[in-house]
């Protein structure tokens, strides 16, 4: 069994959610590429939509169910990690130290407030949508605009040093490198147990997410065992005995 089938057997599964409507496999790609926040994806609705189109009697029915269960489990894990603050060591200013319960509570409180404020903003945006301004504007007086030279240099630096990822919204079949990462995991655990943290320490956010999904799929396939002594504690990958 390989990782090819993940998503492929589900290529005809499309979802209709508030935040996204289209093929399920594109949804996965968008989440993995940070184009869509896992936070916004109602997993329960996702499962319900799958149950509606489930085809237990079909030739690849079992394969489809397994693929869906595997990817949905990965989404749940991703979502649970997203809910816990300060996990992103690779982004500037974000520490990766374990948080004391007090600090965690404080952060969650702050976040909850922001979350509420965001909901309030959303309502205001909706309420105020559809106001278009006049097109009868007159040109401002010539020569009165002043452009800061340093600001132009800064803009050049920003524009020319930006790393641009290819857009994924136009992608046909997704090319998530699950297989590649599964290969890396297989090689890593050949010598014995490896922690997820050390395995992914050099990876960017997306690769970490894909590595997660790959590890889950390998576990599902029986190639490795995932152990986690305590909830949200370190995750260890070891070869199956």
């Amino acid at each position: 069994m390989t990782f090819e089938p993940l998503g492929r057997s589900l290529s005809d599964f499309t979802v209709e959610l508030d935040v996204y409507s289209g093929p399920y496999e594109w949804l996965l790609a968008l989440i993995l590429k940070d184009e869509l926040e896992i936070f916004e994806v109602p997993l329960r609705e996702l499962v319900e939509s799958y149950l509606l189109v489930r085809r237990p009697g079909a030739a690849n029915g079992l394969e489809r169910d397994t693929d869906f269960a595997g990817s949905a489990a990965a989404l749940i894990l991703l979502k649970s990690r997203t809910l816990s603050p300060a996990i992103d060591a690779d982004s500037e200013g974000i520490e990766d130290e374990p948080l004391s319960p007090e600090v965690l509570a404080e952060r969650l409180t702050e976040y909850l407030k922001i979350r509420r404020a965001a909901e309030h903003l959303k309502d205001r945006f909706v309420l105020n949508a559809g106001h278009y301004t006049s097109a009868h504007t007159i040109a401002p007086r010539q020569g009165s605009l002043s452009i800061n030279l340093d600001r132009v240099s800064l803009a050049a630096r920003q524009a020319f040093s930006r790393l641009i990822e290819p857009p994924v919204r136009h992608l046909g079949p997704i090319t998530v490198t699950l297989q590649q990462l599964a290969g890396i995991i297989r090689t890593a655990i050949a010598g014995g147990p490896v922690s997820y943290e050390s395995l992914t320490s050099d990876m960017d956010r997306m690769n970490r997410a894909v590595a997660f999904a790959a590890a889950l799929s390998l576990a599902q396939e029986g190639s490795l065992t995932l152990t986690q002594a305590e909830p949200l504690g370190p995750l260890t990958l070891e070869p199956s005995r």
Partner: protein
Amino acid sequence: MRDQERRPAHLIEAVLLVSARPIGSSDLRSATGLSDQELESALAGLRERYAPESSGIVLREVAGGHLLSTNPACSAAVERFRREARPAPLSGAAHEVLACALYLGPLTRGAVSRVRGVNSDAVIRSLIERNLLVEVGADHDAPGSPALLGVTDEFLAATGASSRKDFPPLDSLVTQEELDRVRERLASSGTAAGSEPS
């Protein structure tokens, strides 16, 4: 008739027509040469003339100024005329980033990500692109002097706010009960179990 043509409200109407940005009272005064009082009473009349119930053009007080815009009740006709779809609504993540900038800003990209618990750079970039967020300075105390982000006048206009003060205070948005529930849940989950016998 000449007198009527020069009525204060007419001068204001004409000036408002040629601006796609809110015009502050002092700019309106100096363009029209009206006194404070004349301006105020003329604006009161215009608010009625351009009220959503009575006109397809509405007068709004946003981002510290006065602005004519189309009545949202007519937006479908406007969009058909322009052959333009309404811009896609912002994502939940984008609303969160804007809430950070509005309530906690100006703040750095790192600070936004810290509050939200996830890297927010891509969302921030798209908000800057949409002119809702802007770099307003730099945090010189931090290494590399990262840029500080704040909300723009376009943001205020898009949310119908006349100023930053037009939003409810952050603390009023969450009830103590909710906060207690968070703490409880945290205590009962594995994370805080160490400090709290379960």
